């Protein structure tokens, strides 16, 4: 078992190293020079070329890509992600600050998507070919097809401007504002994110449920004279939920991509907005930190999953050892 974990860890490190090299190369290929960006040509007064060169040396951008990479990875393995080019703040500090708001938005969005999507999908399957089913199908297709930025703008217009029920943007009122204030700011962006995701969940939940409902063991259960509630609630639902877990998981990246857009529209100070601002400002340390954090998270989860799976099913461990 230990050997298995060590081997998986080693593979993760290699993958991470590969990702970091790729990232470094991609950043270099990006047009625009951060040092030039830091010395604004329209407000700078003096010898700009010298100032740009000074910046370049300070940031180590005058070194070869190889040297830059070795330096960066050396700091990275010690847990130092460097300093933001534009604000000079430690990258870890900036990212930790931004993680909370993003997690709050995505977490709430996911919960809303699950609470809405799965019951509606199951209901549609059970009332197949009725008005409920058609209604659910149409609404889920609408949710899938309309881009979330558009829904967001409509939402702001209706609930923020016309009805005045909810704030139009931001994560809190000036200075904080307490729990109720935070919830009021969260409702609209989280609901829009959640509903966009609920669309696919409805479709999958309906399909999974229909598949299970048509299977022989359910016919058997029914013919045994089990109560309808028990047949649906225990046997059908239980089996339908298993493939759904997969679908929910696969949609997580979509959720993240959606959060980036929603953060932008609602001026939500999360990681998505941070990453976009960093792209514009060519803030390489922030960008590297952001992508590496995502990569580490995914690899870590993969590792945990593999280990957990190996514990459940010894065949994986054995086949792995043979390979």
């Amino acid at each position, binding site marked *: 078992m230990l050997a298995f974990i060590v081997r998986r860890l080693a593979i993760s490190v290699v993958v991470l190293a590969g990702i970091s090299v790729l990232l470094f190369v991609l950043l270099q290929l990006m*047009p*625009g*020079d951060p040092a*030039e*960006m*830091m*010395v*604004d*040509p*329209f*407000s*700078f*007064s*003096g010898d*700009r*070329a*010298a*100032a740009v060169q*000074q910046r370049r040396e300070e940031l180590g951008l005058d070194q070869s890509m190889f040297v830059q990479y070795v330096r960066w990875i050396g700091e990275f393995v010690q847990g130092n992600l460097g300093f933001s080019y534009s*604000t*000079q703040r430690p990258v870890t500090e900036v990212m930790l*600050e*931004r*993680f909370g*708001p993003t*997690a709050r938005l995505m*977490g*709430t969005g996911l919960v809303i998507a699950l609470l809405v999507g799965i019951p509606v999908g199951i209901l549609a399957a059970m009332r197949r070919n009725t008005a409920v089913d058609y209604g659910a199908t149409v609404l889920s297709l609408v949710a899938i097809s309309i881009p979330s930025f558009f829904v967001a703008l409509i939402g702001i217009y209706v609930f*923020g401007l016309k009805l005045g029920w909810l*704030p*139009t*943007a*931001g994560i*809190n*009122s*000036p*200075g*904080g*504002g*307490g729990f109720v*204030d*935070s919830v009021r700011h969260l409702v609209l962006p989280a609901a829009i994110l959640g509903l966009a995701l609920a669309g696919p969940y409805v479709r999958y939940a309906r399909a999974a449920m229909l598949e299970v409902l048509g299977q022989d063991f359910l016919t058997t259960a029914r013919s045994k004279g089990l109560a309808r509630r028990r047949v649906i609630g225990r046997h059908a639902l239980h089996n339908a939920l298993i493939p759904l877990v*997969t679908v*929910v*998981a696969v949609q*997580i990246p979509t959720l993240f991509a959606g959060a980036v857009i929603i953060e932008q529209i609602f*001026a939500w*100070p999360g990681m998505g907005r*941070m990453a976009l*601002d960093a792209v*514009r*400002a060519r803030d390489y340390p922030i960008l590297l930190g952001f992508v590496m954090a995502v990569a580490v*998270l995914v690899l870590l*989860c*993969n590792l*945990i*999953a*593999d280990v957990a*799976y190996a514990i459940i099913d010894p065949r*994986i461990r054995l086949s792995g050892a043979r390979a």
Partner: protein
Amino acid sequence: MIGRRNRSIAAALAGLALLAAAACSGPDEDTGSTGGESGAPAGDREVTVQLYQAPRGFSPLLASIGPDHLMEQLHWDSLVSATADGEYGPRLAESWEVSPDGKTWTFHLRDDVLWSDGEPFTSEDVLFTYNVYANPATGSAYAGKFGTVTGAAALADGTADAVAGFQAPDEHTFVIQLDAPNVALLDELVQPILFILPQHVVGELPLEGLADNPFFREPTVGLGPYVFQRWVTDDQVEFAANPEYRDELGLDRIFTQYVTTDVATAQLETGEIDFAQVAAPDVARVEGLDGVTLHRADGPGVLALHTAIDSGKLADPRVRQAIMYAIDRESLVEEVLAGEGKVVDTLVHGPEWAMPDDLTHYGYDPDKARELLAEAGWDPATPVRLEIVPGQRDRDTTMTIVAAQLQEVGINAQVQPYEAAQLSESIGNRDFDLLISGYGLFTIDPASMNARLMCAQVGGANISAYCNEELDALLQQGIATTDQAERESIYAQAQKIVNEEVPIFVLYVPNTLAATSDRLQGFELNPSVVDAFWNAADWTVSS
């Protein structure tokens, strides 16, 4: 099969981790302050004001960006600044005078000013700060402003520790001694505003690379009416009334909030924000809002196209004139700006005395443009890029129209969208054809064109790299002459040259537009967009 299931379980776990994190992070634990009722814009004596870009901090030494400059007006203070009437106004300096030879500037400082920690503000602070500005080693973006100050070169090349020409003869007097006369020195001090730093605090920090010191992210001492308290989030900053401020203040706190102008306009409507910039196309809508006041002023800056003259592509003045004739600028103002602007034919468009009446007006005349191009032997195949960072409606539309109008007269013009980083790089590489940018304060003194057009500024603020000896000589004379009638005639000649040579293609002068909620009283619109918080000390809220 196994691999796929593994992955999905991993992703599921990732989802769970996020959920857990969301649960942990919960709502703000550190509300820290009395944000008032939920949904209420702010407390009784609080206002929220918009920043149209993400702020970095409070370092006045870095090349200025709008949001930082605005926040710095709350937190720091300066000797002078431009007023709403388009003049130089006193701040820390009560008065000033220039010697008849134009070489000695004397500033008389207020004696009733304390830093927010209670330390007195004196001429030593000014002396310290100006030495920091003049020293490129600090990372100062403004060393170039002090090239003619006595001893500035010695500081820059490291042979002196301080600029000999900056002097503090007593606690409340500051003197700038120049090698070459400059009667328009104040222009250098107001755009951007050169804020004064506390020597007793900043003087303790390492001089090398001072511009980037973390102190400027969370400064502990200030001099302005509202001093920095904390970053509520990365784009919201809280300021509190400076307890030592020289006048009584009308507010307890100010929040600055980075939101785009579109969002800010919506927030004005809901009362979530008290000050916002207004885009010209939104004027009619904002004017129709209840409880919102629109402020409008003639703009001091320009929206202009810039070419790298040293690249040679548009080096022939006839080609540049042709471009001016090819563009229907009056229609641009009408269509794109909804009439909120005007058309001018030189970079400097004020004050009145600096505007000779014999300037050529570049009205829309495509035939004349074709004629001039033919005369210059222009090759219609030459590609001409219109470089722009997209995202502002008025500029985006303007560029599309300009491209079509240039094609109309036989210039192979194409809009080239760039990101800001690429744009800066193309300027560094001297590789741009018609780059759009808006900036400036060109209405107080005609010497404001010097930074953009003099040979000595090539490689710095003169991004076009335009260099004309005749104009240079006139501009030198212009700042060396105290006699008003003489200056008038010098600038009449200078303006004529700029008008004919078209070193910079001025498209139009947009009006300065902003809106405030009726809660915020005492706001006075400064025509210079980046100086909007110049009179924050006079702000109050209506009860």
